[in-house]
Structure formats: structure tokens, C-alpha cells
């Protein structure tokens, strides 16, 4: 455990930035110029400093590097804000400018102390005591919600059958309206998982050649989910838990917690306009497990958890229930280990699709599965050269790059890193192809984010 001493790399810091503008603004603040009263450590694994802005009083910024949390007196809604990024960059690159000190200034100390207390309370509180104060009332709430979801699933089944009676061809004309309305009904039914899937159906008719087949497949899987929900009593519990998760009924992470050295493999955000979802993939150095930490940010606000690629955390993760589910909750963090121990052991293209195939037995709704591909060569494929593959280095088999990933700048970073030679790539392998998220070159251990 090493809370002090290990400073993050600037690249790891920049990976935290919620967007390119923040990265830029943060970089500008990453030199000693505007900073004063800086310090780090003090037995707390924190970094703090005051940053001169345009106003008369400097902003006060403090970062808890052990628990990875930020506080800044600036009015920015970005998270972490440019001051936090700038402070971390300064800390990462300039040991002179940010020196180890015995204790933080009062304003930083208060916040850090508050965090520690909260963490201790959460730790010492008996599991779920507050939430199940009245077990009877809680049970009734759960039942009422289940009834609503059931009503929603029945209605959705009816709508799917109507759709197929009228023909999918008609779906092209009816446009988004039909789906939006259905999705809204599912939100009313407290089944956000169903709502999300329905909304995605709406985008399929505009998704290019072969859309009717894709639409039929997704309708069928939605139908499968409805049927699974309606028949969940008869399912084995792990699958039933998966169904609850897929439908969108909240499930709590339930132990046992796994303590490990967790390497941050990737972090990326997706947004549907209302909600930003952050996915952080972690790899347990000792357990070999892969875990997914999700965090959410509402309406333009970035999610609160941010972990830079390449960082290794000594932490506990508590898995969520459900067969084929990798989601886990980030629990107590014992420190940051610096890391750069290189990528996890990888596999070949054929193993990656097989791994995805296997998880479908537990979770037929899985879109993709996280894998590390060992020694693959990014290869332009297709007649127009507008599609790409990741090919095993023996040149026999390959995974196509998923269509969504083709238009991202990360693809070119990947190509540049490879230079026509093999690289190790972590990403998500699914039925639409492989989405590369992080790459390692043979000559270095630092993962390069492709997101």
C-alpha cells in the first residue's frame, strides 16, 4: 500500500478529463504559474492548491487521489474541473511545485476529513440496515414495482405482435414517434431497461442495408426479455437476476467484496442526451477477473467517478448479481499503486468470439464481452478500405472493427501505434464486431486510450 509517493502520469491525469475542452484548459493550468499553497500527501493521499483565476480570490482545489474525488471552489459544472486537472498535472510533472507536506491547509483538511468519516460510517454500518428499516414496506414496494413492470412487459408484447402483424416494412415509415411513445410507456412502467431497448429499435430503420433483419433480431430479443420477465419465477436465480438487471429493476451490489490490485483498462462515456453513462473496465491483477464499474451523470454533468487508464488501485469491488454480469461497485480503496505493469494476458480472435458466444448462454442479451487481444495487426479491409479488422499476427483470422468505432479518431491512434505491426488491444467483442478501447505496443507498458 502506497498512498504517498506514487504520482500519476500526466497521461493518466488527462484521461480523466470529461471532454477535449477540459483537457485543453486543464493542460494550460498544469504549470506552476497560477498555483500557490500547493501540497500533497500529509498522510491523506490528497493534492491541494490555490489557483489564481480572473477573480480576486483564488480557487481552492483539492483532490483525494486515494478515493479519487475532487472539490473545487470554482463554479464549473465540469467534473473534474480544469483546476483539478491542472493541479493533478502539476503534481504529476513537478515534484518541486507540489511537495509532500505533513498536513493539508484547513479548508482542504476539512473536506478530506469529512470524506473519511463518511467512508468509515458506510463501512461500519451493518449491511443494508437503513434501507430495510421496515422490511414489510420494502417488500410491498418491490412487489408494486414488479406488478408495474409486468404490465409494461405485457403491453410491450402486444405492441411487438401488432408490429409483426403489420410488417416491419411499415416501421420504416412510422419513424421515431411510434418508438418514443412505446418507450415512454415503458418508463411509466418503471422498466428503464425495456425503454432503452425500445428506443434503440427506433434507430434501426435508418441504420443502412440489412435493417429489417437487425430490427427483427432486436424485436425478438426484446420479446425474449418480456417472456423471461413474465416467466422469471421458473428461472434459475442467476438468470432471473440477469433478467431483472436487463429490464432495469434496480439491484444492489451484494458481496462478497473482492480485494485486488485493479488495473484500469478503459474508461469511456456514452450519452443519450439526458444521461451520461461512464463505463470503467477493471482487471484484477491477482484474481484475473474483469469488472465493470458504472457511473452516471445527469443532464450535462459528468459522472463523479473517474479513473485514469493505466492506474492500479488497491481496492475492493463488490459484484452485482446476475449470470454473465460483470458489473461491480467500487468499494473501499486502500491506495493507488501507480502501475504500468502492462496489459493483461490476451487471447486470439477465435477465442474472443468464443468468449462472447459463451456469455450468451448466461445472458442472451449481451451485446459484447470485454477481451484483450494479443498481438493483433489493425488491417484495412473491404474493397473501399473503409472497414477495418484486427487480425491475428499469423494472418489467418481476424475480428472486424465494429461500425461505431470506425468513425472514431481512436482508430487512427490504433493504426499509428501499430505501424503495421502487432499490438495488444483491449476492447469489447460483440456481434457487430470489436470495439477497441485501449492499446499497448510491444515496446512499452503504458496503455494508450483509444476512446
Amino acid at each position: 500500500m502506497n498512498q504517498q509517493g506514487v504520482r500519476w502520469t500526466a497521461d493518466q491525469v488527462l484521461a480523466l478529463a470529461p471532454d477535449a475542452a477540459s483537457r485543453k484548459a486543464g493542460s494550460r493550468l498544469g504549470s506552476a504559474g497560477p498555483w500557490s499553497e500547493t501540497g500533497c500527501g500529509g498522510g491523506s493521499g490528497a493534492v491541494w492548491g490555490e489557483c489564481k483565476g480572473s477573480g480576486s480570490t483564488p480557487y481552492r482545489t483539492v483532490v483525494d487521489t486515494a478515493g479519487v474525488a475532487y472539490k473545487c471552489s470554482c463554479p464549473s459544472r465540469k467534473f473534474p474541473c480544469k483546476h483539478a486537472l491542472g493541479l493533478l498535472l502539476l503534481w504529476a510533472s513537478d515534484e518541486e511545485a507540489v511537495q509532500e507536506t505533513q498536513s493539508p491547509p484547513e479548508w482542504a483538511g476539512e473536506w478530506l476529513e469529512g470524506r473519511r468519516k463518511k467512508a468509515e460510517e458506510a463501512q461500519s454500518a451493518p449491511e443494508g440496515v437503513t434501507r430495510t428499516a421496515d422490511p414489510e414496506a420494502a417488500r410491498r414496494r418491490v412487489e408494486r414495482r414488479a406488478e408495474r413492470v409486468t404490465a409494461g412487459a405485457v403491453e410491450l408484447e402486444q405492441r411487438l405482435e401488432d408490429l409483426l402483424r403489420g410488417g416491419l416494412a411499415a416501421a420504416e415509415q412510422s419513424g421515431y414517434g411510434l418508438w418514443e411513445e412505446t418507450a415512454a410507456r415503458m418508463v411509466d412502467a418503471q422498466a428503464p431497461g425495456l425503454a432503452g431497448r425500445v428506443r434503440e429499435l427506433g434507430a434501426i430503420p435508418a441504420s443502412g442495408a440489412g435493417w429489417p433483419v437487425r430490427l427483427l433480431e432486436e424485436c425478438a430479443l426484446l420479446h425474449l426479455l418480456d417472456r423471461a420477465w413474465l416467466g422469471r419465477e421458473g428461472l434459475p436465480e442467476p438468470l432471473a437476476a440477469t433478467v431483472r438487471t436487463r429490464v432495469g429493476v434496480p439491484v444492489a451490489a451484494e458481496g462478497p467484496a473482492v480485494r485486488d490490485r485493479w488495473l484500469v483498462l478503459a474508461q469511456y462515456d456514452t450519452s443519450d442526451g439526458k444521461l451520461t453513462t461512464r463505463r470503467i473496465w477493471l482487471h484484477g491483477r491477482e484474481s484475473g477477473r474483469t469488472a465493470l464499474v458504472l457511473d452516471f451523470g445527469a443532464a450535462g454533468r459528468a459522472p463523479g467517478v473517474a479513473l485514469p487508464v493505466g492506474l492500479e488501485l488497491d481496492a475492493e469491488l463488490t459484484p452485482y448479481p446476475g449470470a454473465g454480469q460483470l458489473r461491480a461497485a467500487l468499494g473501499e480503496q486502500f491506495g493507488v499503486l501507480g502501475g504500468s505493469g502492462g496489459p493483461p494476458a490476451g487471447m486470439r480472435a477465435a477465442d474472443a468470439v468464443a468468449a462472447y458466444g459463451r456469455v450468451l448462454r448466461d445472458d442472451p442479451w449481451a451485446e459484447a464481452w470485454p477481451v484483450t487481444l494479443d498481438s493483433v495487426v489493425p488491417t484495412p479491409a473491404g474493397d473501399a478500405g473503409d472497414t477495418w479488422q484486427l487480425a491475428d499476427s499469423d494472418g489467418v483470422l481476424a475480428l472486424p472493427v465494429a461500425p461505431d468505432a470506425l468513425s472514431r479518431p481512436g482508430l487512427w491512434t490504433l493504426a499509428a501505434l501499430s505501424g503495421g505491426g502487432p499490438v495488444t488491444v483491449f476492447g469489447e467483442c460483440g456481434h457487430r464486431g470489436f470495439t477497441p478501447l485501449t492499446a499497448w505496443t510491444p515496446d512499452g507498458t503504458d496503455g494508450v486510450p483509444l476512446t
Partner: protein
Amino acid sequence: MTTTVATSAWEELVTSALLGTDRRPAPEGVASLLDTAALHTVRRRAGLLAAPAAVPPEPAAHDPRPALPAPARRRLAQLLADRSGPSGAGGRRGTTPDLTELLPQWLAAAGLHGYRAPASLLPALLDAARARTDLRPQALAFAGPRGLWLAGLNPEWKFALRGAAGGAVLPPPSDTGAVQHLWEEGLFAERVALLASVRAAAPETGRTLLASTWSTERAEDRLMFLDSLRTGLSEADEPFLEQTLSDRSRNVRSTAAELLSALPGSALAGRMAVRAATCVSPDRTGEGAGIVVEAPHECDAAMQRDGVVPTPPAGRGERSWWLGQLVEAAPLSVWPGRFGGRTPQQITDLAVSDDWGEELHAAWCRAAVRQRDAEWARALLGGPGTASLAERAKLLATLPEDERADWVAEFIAAHGLSEAFQLLGVCAVPWAGPLGRAVVDSLEIARDAGSYPWSFSGVMGLAERCMDPTEASRFEALAAMPDEAEGAAPGAGGYWSEAFQRLVSTLRLRAAMLQELEAPA
């Protein structure tokens, strides 16, 4: 990925779904159709196989240059990330350095160290070079073979392949066969680059190459090739240039004449010397020494063949037009002999008869620039209203670097900054200490006089980029917020302090930038 399961039953199912079971009933009803489709979908996904691999790209050539030190790599990432930021054109720019303007300097410094570009930053580097043509030569040289390789995969970076004359694709000058082949088959830009590289290694071979196809080249290409002879021009080029004096194209002829006149020993220069000397003579009639000018009365065929353009532009007299061209093309070495062994300074100090002074001095200025004659340039620079600032800047460029800086420093001390911009542009970077101090002194004077800093934003921007970074600490006092002086423009003090703060932080940044490049990887 491919699937082996492709049954006609599935196709029928899709058809039913597409048309609707009302029109095309499914045998076991709609729900069962969805069941079957779900089963099929999961089976298909679970049964996916990896695809056969396409032919991989040819690996990029090895780049033996050392990797950047990590801090320098991060700095580059920062400079590249800042590209899209607001440009600092005029107006108020705050106190933070304009990183975009520092990218060329960073690339130049990295080029001197001979580093290899980090692979992960190649896409951003190519994007930057795509947006800014002025960055291209340095950016592409830095990007090296892998950058070129990457550009070959993305049509948006095609420009990199066109401009790939940085030695990456040119055959070595000694490879006669390859040189000949590229000369005959290459694109124009490749041929220009080839000519330059061959000339640099073996000038004679270069001339032979050029002569071998000269008569078949298009006029505009002949002009460009001829223009490229400027670099490394030598006496040995004279016979070829003499021939091209009779070229079909007038532009080619005048360029050939211009190049010949830059060779003081050439026959053309000799002919022009004779002509010019007959027009410009010592004044033997008056009491003091002076210069008498008798402009030519005609522009004969021989003059025209030597590149004199007979028709003046509108508003200029024929005779003064011809005179200017003769003096401009005559070797400056002819004049001391003509004026009793006087030095250039003494000659330019002589009074000139009948208002010909301005004409004559202007022609001498052009001659000094063309012949890169520092002594004449020095004499003319001090002259009374000799030439425009643009011409002064050109004259300055012929002086040694430290002398140039001293001259501009003195000029600024005497005349202030308002006319100094062009002159500063020809000074070596980083600016010599006295020059930098002269600039800052003048800025301080302008501030105290109550101007706004944006009247000097051009000079300020230059100072940020060109001032010696080790001077940063000198300006810290200026960056402090001054007391509002009586009669000063309202708020100007704050803006000045902001501008000086930016200057200081930019200098600091540049110092850090250069230091990062020194660090071991």
C-alpha cells in the same frame, strides 16, 4: 464475423416479418415467430466465427530516431490539443500563452534534436499539418516514415504523400538509374525536389539533368526549375543561364537575367556594368563631389536580351525605368572604381544631381539584396529615406545576425515600434539581448504614454515567440498591475499588465519546452 447458419427457414421468417403476418401468415402465429427469431438470433450470435484476415498493410519503415523524453511528449500533446482553440488575432487575449503559435517552434527544436514523433500523436500531428500548410515541412519531417505510412491509409492525409519530398521517397543522387527515371516520370513537385537534392550533391549532374529535358518542358515548369537554381547558384551555372536568355518565354528570360546579374563575374553582369557606368558618373562640373545621372535614351535589343523590360508600368517614365534595371543588375563592385576608390558609404553619401537620388539609391538597394552585399546594405540602410520598410527588411537580411539585431534595436530606440514589425521579422530567433530589451523598453514607453496594448499586438505576439526565454524574469515587474496614471486610457493599465503577464508566461513556457527536449528519454 461470419455465421454458418443460414437457412431458408430464417429467410422465410424475415419475409413474413417484413410484410406482416396479416398478409403473409406465419404457420404458428406471431408469438411463435418471435420465439423462433429469438432462438435464431442468439444461436447466430453464439455461433459467430472469426473472419478470414485480409492482407495486412506493409509495415511502416523503421524509424531509428530516438523517442521523445516523456515531458516533451506531453508538451507536444498539449500543443496539438490546443490547435482548435481561438486564435490570438488582435483584441484581448488574456494572460495564457497562445500555444498554437508555439507549435512551429517546438517542431523546429525537436527537429534539431532529431527525435522521432510519438506514434500515438501522429494522427493529431497530421491533422495539424493538414490545417496549416506552413507547418507541413517540419511536421512531416518529424512524423517520419510512420507518419507517411499512416497518411497512406487515410485519404484526408493525402497531402502528406504529395509533399513527401523530405528525402523519404527521393532516390540517392548517386543512384543514376533511379534519378533518371524519377526525373522523366515523376510528378512536378518530385522533380523539383529531385533537382534540388541532386544539385546539392553534384551540381554538374543537376545541370545535365535539367538540360536533358529543357526544351520539352512547359514554360511555367521551366520558370520553376530556373527559380530553383537560386539555391546554390554558382559561376558554373552561367553557361546554362546564358542560353536561357534566349528562351521563348519572357518570364524565363527575365529570371535568367536576374540570376546572372546575381553572379558578379558573369558576362551579363559585365555587360550591365558597362551600361550602368555610362549612365552614372562622378560630377566634375560642380564645386563639391557629386553624382551625375544620364538615364538611357533607348532600350535596344541587346538590353532586352539581357533581361531589361522595355515597357514601364503605368505612371513611370521609360528612361528612369530602364536606368533602374541597369543599376539593379550591375555588380556593385563596379562603383568604387568609378568614384575614385570611395567606399560604398562614401558613394551613397554623395549628392545626386537632378532628383535622381531616390531612383539610384532604390536600384542600389535592390542590387545589394540580389547580390547579398552586406557592405552596400549597411551603407544604404543608413541612407536618407532610401527605401520602404519592406526593402529595408530585405537589406537587413544581408547583414550578419548580430549586426541585424543591433541595427533594429537602434532603429526601435530611435523610432519606436510602430514601424518595426517587418524589421523584427528578419531578426534571428531568439532575439539578441539588446534587441529584446529595446522592444520591451518601447512597449513600456507606449504603455506609459497611455496607448492600449492591442495597438502593439503584432509586436507583442512576435516578442512572445522570439524573445530569449531566459529574459523572462526581466519583465515580471512590468506584469504587475500599475497605478492608473493621470490621462492614461481608461483600463489600459490592466490590459498591459495582462499582456506582459502573457509575455512572461509564454517565455517561461518556451524555456520549459526547450528544456524538456534536452532531457534524456
